[in-house]
Structure formats: structure tokens, C-alpha cells
């Protein structure tokens, strides 16, 4: 196996990690910062992708599609927050689970009702299509490089917002004691609607960006949702930095174990069983990773003490 291939696979792992981060960032904001288990986050991802596909279909513009994805997901998020979630902050997590599960059903079937059962088309913009040659002769799709860039940018922006701005402090304070921060003069309801919309917008953005290289279809959000949960739990709930590291870890593990484990096993056993055993273990790898991390550190890598 050549060094070039290994470098390329590491890049792939990073890139898939960065994409996961986009999804996980919104989730960790909402889950960690607002203390809300939002299973419907995957639906917002789907909303973003569908909005982007619809707008791209009509206008042909990728930029407009992204704007539409952000707007649609943010709007959907704000509506959910005001209509449903707001009533659930005080109730226990389980009610939130049931409510957001119900939202998944409504969103998924609603989307199917509006857009039909067939996957939609969304393609990467011409300007970003095709591969570029990196130093060392690695051919790498430009779009994926762009994704890494966007992801890093969002990560940095969010980190600034949460850790360095007063709004970020207030959001975190609200998570600790909602009633108290209101009693000290912060309009926490508005703040939460905003955060929820922001988290939703990030999910929508992820949906649109990823939708361009994957399939835009009903139910696309659920597998990513699980991965995103894995990411934020590994990183420590509520920590943007944790989500980022967690996403990279998951992305790298998922990619590299899947590729290299069968090769490693082939050193010890026949090719056919090695391939199948290797890929079986690979599909479990991130869950194994998560369990190990949690057994080692019960509140994730960067989680506040539970």
C-alpha cells in the first residue's frame, strides 16, 4: 500500500469527519447547550437537502440552493422550537425523545408527501467539480477540499461564538439554570429560539453540502443523526471543541478501519473471510470506539464533569 494512498485515505477520513462535524455542531449546541435531546435534527438535515435540491432544480444556482437550505432549515427549526420544543424544556428528557421522534415521523412523511418518494437531484457546482492535484501527486476532488474548508470555518466561528462572546456565555448559563438567567434579565426564550434556529441551519447546511455528493432522499437524516450523536458523546456533550475532535476521530476511524482492517487481517487469514470479517468489524468500529472512550472517560473527551 503506497504512502500516497494512505495520505489520501487520511484526507478522506478528515473530510468525512468535517462533514460530520457540521451535523454534530448543531446537535451539540441544541443537545448540550440547551439540554434538549433533539432526535429531529436529522429531519432538519433532510429539510436542508431537499430545499437545496428544489431551489437548485429551479434556479440552477448552487449558492441560492445553499441560502435556501439555510433559510428553510432555520425556519423549520424556529417553528419547531416555538410550537413544540419550548413547552418541553421543563419536562424530562423522555418527553423530548417522544416529541422529537414524532417530529421525525411528521417531517419524513411530510417531505415524501410534498416531494414524492423518489430521490431528488442535487449536484456540485461546476466551479467546484472534478479533482485537483495536490502536492505529492494526490488527486483529490476539489469539492471535498471545499467542504473541509467550510467545516473548519464553521468550527472556528462556532467556537468563537460559544466560548468568546457574551451570547455564548448566556447560552451556556441558560443551560445550567434557565430560570435564574431569566431572573437576571436575559430573554432566554428568544435566545433559545435563536440557538435552535442556528443549530437547525447548521444541519440544513450540512444536508445541502453533503446532499450534493450523496443521495437526497427521505430518511437520509437518520443514519447521520446516529453518527452525530456518537460524535458529540465522544467529544463530550455541549463542547464545540469536543464535537470537532470527536467528528475527526469518528471520520478517521470509520474510513481507515474500513480500508485497512481487511488488509491487516489478510496477513493472518484467507482473503475471503478476512474481507468479510474485516468489514464486519469495521461497521462496528465507531461504536467500539465510543464505548471505549466512555468507559475510559464517562463524560466524553471534553465533557464537563457529569
Amino acid at each position, binding site marked *: *500500500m*503506497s504512502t*500516497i*494512498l494512505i495520505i*489520501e*485515505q487520511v484526507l*478522506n*477520513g478528515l*473530510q*468525512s469527519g468535517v*462533514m460530520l462535524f457540521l451535523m454534530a455542531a448543531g446537535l451539540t449546541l441544541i443537545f448540550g447547550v440547551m439540554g434538549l435531546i433533539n432526535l429531529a435534527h436529522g429531519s432538519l438535515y433532510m429539510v436542508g437537502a431537499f430545499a437545496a435540491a428544489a431551489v437548485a432544480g429551479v434556479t440552477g444556482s448552487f449558492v441560492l440552493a445553499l441560502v435556501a437550505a439555510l433559510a428553510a432549515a432555520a425556519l423549520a427549526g424556529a417553528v419547531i422550537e416555538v410550537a413544540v420544543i419550548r413547552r418541553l424544556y421543563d419536562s424530562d428528557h423522555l418527553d423530548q425523545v417522544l416529541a422529537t421522534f414524532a417530529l421525525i415521523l411528521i417531517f*419524513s*412523511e411530510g417531505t*415524501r408527501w410534498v416531494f*414524492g*418518494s*423518489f*430521490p*431528488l*437531484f442535487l*449536484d*456540485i457546482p461546476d466551479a467546484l*467539480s*472534478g*479533482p485537483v492535484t495536490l502536492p505529492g501527486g494526490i*488527486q483529490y*476532488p476539489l*469539492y*471535498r477540499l471545499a467542504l473541509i474548508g467550510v467545516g473548519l470555518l464553521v468550527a472556528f466561528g462556532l467556537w468563537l461564538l460559544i466560548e468568546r462572546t457574551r451570547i455564548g456565555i448566556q447560552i451556556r448559563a441558560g443551560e445550567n439554570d434557565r430560570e435564574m438567567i431569566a431572573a437576571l434579565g436575559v430573554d432566554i426564550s428568544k435566545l433559545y429560539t435563536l440557538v435552535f434556529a442556528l443549530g437547525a441551519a447548521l444541519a440544513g447546511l450540512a444536508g445541502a453540502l*453533503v446532499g*450534493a*455528493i*450523496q*443521495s*437526497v*432522499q*427521505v*430518511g*437520509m437524516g437518520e*443514519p*447521520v443523526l446516529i453518527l452525530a450523536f456518537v460524535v458529540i458523546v465522544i467529544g463530550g456533550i455541549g463542547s464545540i471543541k469536543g464535537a470537532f475532535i470527536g467528528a475527526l476521530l469518528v471520520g478517521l476511524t470509520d*474510513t481507515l478501519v*474500513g*480500508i485497512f482492517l*481487511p488488509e491487516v487481517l489478510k496477513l493472518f487469514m484467507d*482473503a475471503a473471510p478476512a*474481507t*468479510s470479517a474485516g*468489514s*464486519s468489524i*469495521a*461497521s462496528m468500529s465507531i461504536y467500539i470506539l465510543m464505548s471505549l472512550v466512555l468507559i475510559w472517560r464517562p463524560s466524553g473527551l471534553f465533557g464537563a464533569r457529569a
Partner: protein
Amino acid sequence: KVGMITTLSGGGASLGIDTRDGFMLAMEDANRDDVEVVIEDDQRKPDIAVQLADKMIQSEKVDVLTGIVWSNLAMAVVPAATAQGLFYLSTNAAPAQLAGKGCNSNYFSVSYQNDNLHEGAGAYATQAGFKNTFILAPNYPAGIDSLTGFKRFYEGELAGEVYTKLGQTDYAAEIAQIRASGADSVFFFLPGGMGISFLKQYADSGVDLPVVGPAFSFDQGILQAVGEAAVGVKNSSTWSKDLDNEANAAFVAAFQQKYDRLPSIYAAQGYDTANLLLSAIDKADVNDDAAFAAALKEADFASVRGEFSFAANNHPIQNVYVREVIKEGDVFTNKIVGTALEDHANAYVDACKM
């Protein structure tokens, strides 16, 4: 009375909807009042499918079951149904177990045997002179069968053989492997969204080796979502909308007229299944198992796939074609460019003791 169990909601709904629409198109064309069809949604969950089968058998008292899209659901329903003396006509799923040792005189696959399209792809790869193919499929029984089927008719070397995670959406790593493997072509079996993702990412990767796959990833319902990325790809199929026969022309026209979209292979198979059933009903009483089975086995109907007959294990003998994805106006679709296998049956005929 016919019970149709198929996937109408959730992720895989488009396949079930096409199956249903194709089937019902034939039924409505026949316009008969002695056949009643009950349709239920299995949500792509095996346990629900089993429930529904129970319901159809116990409450609705149907004579014939049909419609299941997925092999794992078929495995959950078919053995129990045929054991209870019902007929099952498969519109799609046709796993190896039901073709070999587990075959049954009451079970007919009107679609194909699951391996057929992969075998066709393998045969085509050989014909096209590929010497070093990279093959990949998801790591589950159908995926493993797929690669086995391909290898059965492919004579060249393998540049690599990879099993991906079921439901995987990012194939960058596999594509990098393909690039590094020195392959001269790629065969993949990635049904549903997996195939869409793979093709889009493949097209964007700069690797431009020829790609072959079974019809599933190039089906009418999916092609629009893949777009440009699929154009030119060869795929193996037992049916195509431009297949030149009378029944097919009529079917395609009627389907388009009624549903305002192009039919898919699932619709075609659904349509054929209905017509086969109708032809048998004309000949025998469904309550007389032996006679009805014999009537079905005659396959005395005009298949949209042209020549069509049943092998000893009640699976079709038919051609497997090679199609190429083209763009017709705004619509992506397929045209036939060759025949991979002629009058092909399946590998399990001998294993079936019926």
C-alpha cells in the same frame, strides 16, 4: 383474491410504489371482477411483513401473495406462506435459498433469480474484454451473492474485492482504493441511495474507468437523482423501456399515460406478474394447487421482456441485456446496447428438488 405486501412508506417506498402501480396497471387493463387485490404497506420491516402476511391469510383469506421488494422480507414471508398452501408470485426479491433447496411448487419468481443481473454484468465484463475489474458490494447476504454471481460469469482477474457497510453514504475511501488498484473497470452493486452516492462521488473523483452494475442503480426512479454522473454507464437488466416487443410498447405507453412518469423495472415486473397471474386464472382454479401451479408454469402471457418461460425451479428463463444510460431531452434513461446472456436460467436449478 390477491394480497400484495410491498413497501409504500419510508425510505424504500419508491420501489414498492412502482411495483404496485405496474401490477395494478395490468389488473385494471384486464378489468376483471373475479380478482380482488388487497394492498398493504410493510414499511420495509420484516416483522410487519410477517404480520401482514398473517392478516392476508387469516382475515382476508387471499389465495395468492405477491409484491415484496426486499429479499430479507421475502425470506420472512414466503416459506411460511407457501407452507400454508398459498401461492407466492415474486415481483422482485428472489433469494438463492428459495431457488435452490428451499424451492417450492407454489412459489414463482416472475422477476429473475437475484443473481441473474450480476451474472449478466459478469458476462458483459467478459465480453467487453475487461481483464482486471474492481468489485464492490455492501456486506450483507445480497451483496455477497451479488459478487459471487458476478464472478460466476466473469473470466478476468480481480483488482480488488470490497465489502462496504450497509447504508454507507460516503465512498471516497473505496474510490481511492479503486484508483490505487490499477483496475481497468469497476463493478458495483449498491442498491438505493448507496448507488446514487457512489456514482456521484465516482464521477467527481476523476477516476474514469468504465463502470458496470446491475439495473438497480440505474433504474428510472433513481437515475434523475444521479443525473449526468450516470450517463454512459453500462448496466445489466432483464428489461428496458426500449425493448422491442408489442407488450412492452403497450406497457410503457399505458404506464406513462396513467402515472405521468416512465416505468421502472419494478413496474415492469409488477406488470408481468399480474399478467402471469391473470393467464393462470383463466386456465385453472386457484384452489386446485397442482393445476394452478401447472398453469402458472406455462407462463402463457405476453411478457414485456419478450421470450419468457420458467425453469424447473420456477424461476424465469430469459435474456439479460446490457443497457447504457443516456439522456433523452431532460430525462435520463436507458437504451439497450447488447445482450449479455441469452435464455439464461439460474445456478440453482439442480439444487431444487421439487
